[in-house]
């Protein structure tokens, strides 16, 4: 089922590596960036990495569900973004600050 001839053809593994790289970049963004908005964007990146996987799997296995799932994921990502931005806006209004290092009052 899987095409292993990666020299002649772009196979599933290429997509999976791409998705993995994107996912890790997204993770790194969440872990390293300070700006809450950028964090949101990184999370979106992770979700999109997932989408690539879905599509790739779907394509290479011939099952169309994967494509449909991408729509679900995109919808939810949109909802998430909406909620996230709403939160960010509220916080920015309240604190004039979106650097997440500012939010370290709850600890211990």
């Amino acid at each position, binding site marked *: 089922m899987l095409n292993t001839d990666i020299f002649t053809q772009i196979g599933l593994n290429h997509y999976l590596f791409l998705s993995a790289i994107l996912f890790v970049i997204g*993770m790194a963004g*969440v*872990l*390293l960036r300070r700006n809450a908005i950028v964090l949101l964007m990184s999370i979106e990146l992770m979700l999109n990495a997932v989408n690539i996987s879905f599509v790739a799997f779907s394509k290479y296995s011939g099952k169309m569900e994967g494509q449909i799932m991408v729509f679900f994921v995109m919808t939810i990502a949109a909802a998430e973004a909406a909620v996230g931005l709403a939160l960010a806006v509220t916080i920015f209004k309240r604190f004039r600050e979106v650097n*997440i*290092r500012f*939010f*370290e*009052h*709850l*600890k*211990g």
Partner: protein
Amino acid sequence: MSHQLLISTLILSPLIGFLINGLRYKRHSANVAGGVATAAAAISFLSAILIFMELLAMPKEGRQIAVNFFEWMTVASLKINMGFLVDPLNVIMILIITGVGSLIHLFSVSYMHHDEGAAKYFAYLNLFLFNMLVLVLGDNLLVMFVGWEGVGLCSYLLIGFWFKDSDKAAAGMKAFVTNRVGDAAFLLGMFLLFVSFGTLNFQEINNMVPADPTFSWLSPLTLGTLFLFIGATGKSAQIPLYVWLPDAMAGPTPVSALIHAATMVTAGVYMIIRLNPLFLHTPNTMLVIAIIGGLTAVMAASIGLTQWDIKKVLAYSTVSQLGYMFLAVGVGAFTAGLFHLMTHAFFKALMFLGSGSVIHAMHEEQDIRKMGGLKKHMPITHFTFLIGWLAIIGMPPFSGFFSKDEILWLSFHSPLGHPALWALGAVGAVMTAFYMTRLMALTFWGKSRVPQDVHPHESPALMTIPLIVLAILSAFAGWLGVPHVIGAALGHLPNILAEFLSLNIKPIPNLAEANVTTEIILMSVSVGFALISAALAYHMYVRNPELPGKFTEKVKGLHNFVYNKYFVDEAYEGSIIQPLVQTSKSIWFYVDVNFIDKATYWISDIIKGGGSLVRSLQNGNLQTYAMYVAIGLVMTLTFILVR
């Protein structure tokens, strides 16, 4: 009268006396309290006499009255009855106990007249009688042990009677604890016997003793008898547990007479005589008993030579005389032991009461250096004391002569004896003669050293009557047990005591025929030396009162050593008590508080340390949290996919 009722009366009458006096102890009338208590003792004495008559009326072979009140403890094979047995052996004991006891009660009425705790005192005294009767009448070791501990308890209460004085309370405690050491050994002895015989009943044990003696040190019976003997050394003040008895003189003097001279302290001797077939079965134990007895006799007598307190002298004398009794039973001369027990009860009770009379007259002064010449103030006391003195130094024909002589002879002659044991006994006798004469001389004879403000006077009749009765007994009781050699010489006088006890006491095995000449020579030697020693003492303390001082100067070190009782108390204090207390404190501090308890703190510290670690990881930064997730993710994947 049925036997049950008779024995109930005997035993319970002092108990009832105790309860009456105990319940009304706050009313301070010494006369009423004393009356009740004396009556209780007297009723007990009458019952004892009745029992004695009953016993005499029985055929010689079946002389015993057994009464069983109830089953005390029944667990598995252990069956202990609250059973009492009267036989020739303990009928003598109960006669002594109740008889001497009654006299001492009577004496106390007057002696304790002014004490506000009189009712309490008589209550204790009655309780003591009760326990002592239980001790001697019990038909098994456990009931005996009830009395055994009970008398120790009363002794504790009476020694600490004037509890406001810390030292006296301490003396009481010392007595109890020392006795407890013995009691613990007694318990072990009982266990060994129970494991060996399956019973604690005296008769059954005595019947089951194997015929041939055992020579092993580690056989259960040897160990058992040894432990019982250790128990006896506690109660009867033998080496190494004698230390409590001299201190016990802190109690009222009649108590010393009754408990610490006539009755309680002889319980150990009685116990061994009670189990004489068993002890004869274990010659090793017998040897130990004889040696300890002999050594105690000499050691205590030597301390007696140096003491200045009239009661202390008598106390060491008691220890020494008890040593004789153990010497006797150790060589198998059980009859002689019991005989000496009896005569000693009379003359020592007499002397203690006499000393009580003196102390009473001297307004609680006990130092004989402050007495002297009391003869003219207290003629009756002096006369009765004189008879006691004659008896104890073994002057024929007073009672002490017969009993002590028989012990000395048998310690030489018995196959269990040894000339060395005889020598110990003889040395003890010489010393006894010396210190008793010294006591007589310093107290009654010579010049008066009584302080100016003290006016000695003869004691009232209530006190002198018991003295007189005891003096008569001390003088003549010896004829109950006339030695064979003298009896033969005087026309075949029978040894009444030995015959009476023949049922209970196993004869010494392999006893050779007595050599009359040897016996008479030995007798003369011991009496002779005692006389010389008494004369020497008289010379030193009456004729030349400055001589003893000079003499002690010369042997100062030795004198100090003896005067301080060989520093045994200090040795015990230093080697047992202080280390025990110190160790206990360090165990408490180091082991309990700082180790076991701390160990649990370590656990809680570790837990709390973990808590602080988690808290510091929880630093509030959401990226750190995300990092934990990421790290967890990586680690999980590594673990699962790579391992």
